[in-house]
Structures are given as structure tokens and as C-alpha cells.
């Protein structure tokens, strides 16, 4: 069962992630220099792996983080609704918070797997590390772990 702590962590991490992805997307589109520790960011973000079928990976990340922000906001609003009547048999709508939590977890899990792939590409193919990309990978992993913790507690008998 998600607590407000889960919600704060997910919302906070996805907000920071959206900021990072937004910055990377902006520099990709504008061609402006990327502020970076070392030269790894330039190498990684101009590699063929920074684009998927013509779409910069930064845009995919931004979309994911914005979707998570939307879902966690929705989940928070639903979870704080008063149940209709006092009946212990809550209407089906009460299941929605779990579905939203599971959706956030699934999205973050997909993001974690994809980030792990990109990190492996950086380490073993490009041999350059982009600090922004690492930060995003850590954030999406934290979101996946946090949402999993809450969801698995809920799903346990």
C-alpha cells in the first residue's frame, strides 16, 4: 500500500528526472553546449544511441517522467477521496489507485531496463560516461524501487 512517503519520493524523483530530460532535450534540439563533468556527455549525446528512430532519447525520458508525474498526481487525488458511503464494499473506482501504482511501477521498470542498456553501451561501447544520463538512471531506478515496494505490499495476500 502506497504511503505519502512513496508518493513524495516518486513525485520528487520524477520531477528532477523531467528537469534533467528537459535540459538534455533542449540541448539536443538547440545544438547548444551541454554542461558536463568531463567530456563524456558530448560523446554520449552525439552517438547514434542517443536517438531512437529519429526521436532523441531525451524526449522519451521526458515523456516517461511527465507521465509518471501525471499518474502519481492522479493516484494521490484518488487515494485521498472519501469512500462513497460507509459500506466496506467500496465501488470498483477504489481499485484505480492500485492500477495507477502498478502502471507507474511498470513504466519505471521499463525505464530502468532501458537505462541499464544505455549505461552498458556507455561503459563498453562508447567508453564515455554522461553524468546526466547516470543521474536519470539512478532516479528512474529509485522510482521503480519505491513504487515496487508499495505495490508489492499491496499485492501481498
Amino acid at each position, binding site marked *: 500500500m502506497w504511503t505519502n512517503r512513496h508518493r513524495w519520493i516518486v513525485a520528487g524523483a520524477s520531477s528532477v528526472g523531467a528537469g534533467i530530460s528537459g535540459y538534455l532535450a533542449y540541448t539536443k534540439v538547440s545544438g547548444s553546449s551541454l554542461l558536463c563533468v568531463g*567530456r563524456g556527455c558530448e560523446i554520449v549525446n552525439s552517438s547514434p*544511441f542517443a536517438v*531512437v*528512430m529519429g526521436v532523441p532519447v531525451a524526449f522519451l525520458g521526458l515523456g516517461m517522467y511527465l507521465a509518471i508525474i501525471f499518474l502519481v498526481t492522479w493516484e494521490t487525488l484518488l487515494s485521498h477521496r472519501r469512500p462513497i458511503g460507509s459500506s466496506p464494499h467500496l465501488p470498483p473506482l477504489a481499485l484505480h489507485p492500485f492500477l495507477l501504482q502498478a502502471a507507474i*511501477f511498470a513504466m519505471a521498470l521499463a525505464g530502468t531496463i*532501458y537505462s541499464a542498456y544505455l549505461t552498458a553501451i556507455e561503459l563498453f*561501447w562508447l*567508453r564515455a560516461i554522461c553524468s546526466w544520463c547516470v543521474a536519470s538512471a539512478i532516479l528512474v531506478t529509485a522510482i521503480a524501487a519505491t513504487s515496487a515496494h508499495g505495490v508489492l505490499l499491496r*499485492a501481498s495476500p
Partner: protein
Amino acid sequence: MRRTLVLFIAGAVIVAGGLIGLSLYSARPQKTEVVVVPAQGTTKGSPTAPVTLMEFADFQCSHCADFASGTLRRLEREYVATGKVRVVFRQFPVLGQESVWAAIGAECAAKQGKFWAFHDLLFRVRRGVDAGAFLPARLLAYARELGLDQEAFRACLQSGQVVEKIREDIQEGVKYGVEGTPSFVIGGRLIVGNQPYEVFKEAIEEALAQAR
């Protein structure tokens, strides 16, 4: 609920797998379109072209590689092949030790008339800064791949005979205000970075108008 969760997890794995597949497909080596233009040394295009585009680049520079595989190809089709622009590559190895070795290798390839093939190969195999792609042994392998005279190439690498030319290129760049790569000089105007194609087009058209 547990079954729902398993479905969501399966969906996540499928989506991630699909993205990884698309990423690998997108990153596959692209066929480069061959545009035949005259080339001499580190110059490409007609020697009587009214406009010269001088590029100052480092073979370890990722934006330089982007320019080589993208905008340069379009410029070749639209301006170099039509005799309007002559492209001159000037060495500006600043990123690391292997930048210098790559520059030396490229100038040694130029002595055997294979500069541009070597230029394309170096940008294709570029991995990172001082990541081993441009070590002397690798440069010899690239020369062998392009059919260069191995002994002459090795002798050129070891003798340092092209170092003075590279030094002159750097000094030329500094004179124009070049501080990083890639940088371009078109009609006396400095363009910094791998700008969108339209920026180069505008500068070339302006230089062509002045040359008339």
C-alpha cells in the same frame, strides 16, 4: 491483483525490449551516399571554386564526426559537386594525445592521396577521447584497410614530417579565432560548432554573392 501486477511487469519488459531493439536498429551503420568530387590532399572540390570552406576539426570530436556524416555530405551534393565551394580540412587536434596521432595519420594518408578516405574511416571508428581508437598500431591497421603503402605510412608516422603542417593548421585556426572544434571559416566569417545546414547555406550564399 497479483495477476494484474504480473501483466504490468510483462508489459514493461516487452516495452523495454522493444525500445532496445529499435535503438540497436537505429544505431546500425548507415550506407553513405557517394558523391564524386575532385580531391587533392586535404582539399575537396574544384580548385577554381569561388568560395572556400575551411574546416578546423579534431578526429576525436563527436560534433566534427556529426558534421562529416551529415552536413558535409549535403554540402558536397549541393555546392562542392557543382563547383561552387571548395572544402579544405585543417587539423586542430585539441582533445587529447590520440587527436594528435589521428591528425598525423590523416596527413600521412594525404601524402598517398587517401586523405578523405582516411578522414571518413577515422570519424566512423571514433569511440571517445583517448579511448584507444587512434593509437599508432590502429592507424597502421586503418592504412592497411585502405590499401596504403604500409612502409611509407609507417615511416611517415615515425618521422614526424607532417607535424609542421599540423602546427601551421593550428596557427591558421588561432589566427581566425578558432578555439574549439568543429569551427569553419567561409568567406572570412567564422562559424563555430556543427550548426544546422541552413547556417552554412546562408554563409555560402553570402560569400558567393560577394564573389560575383
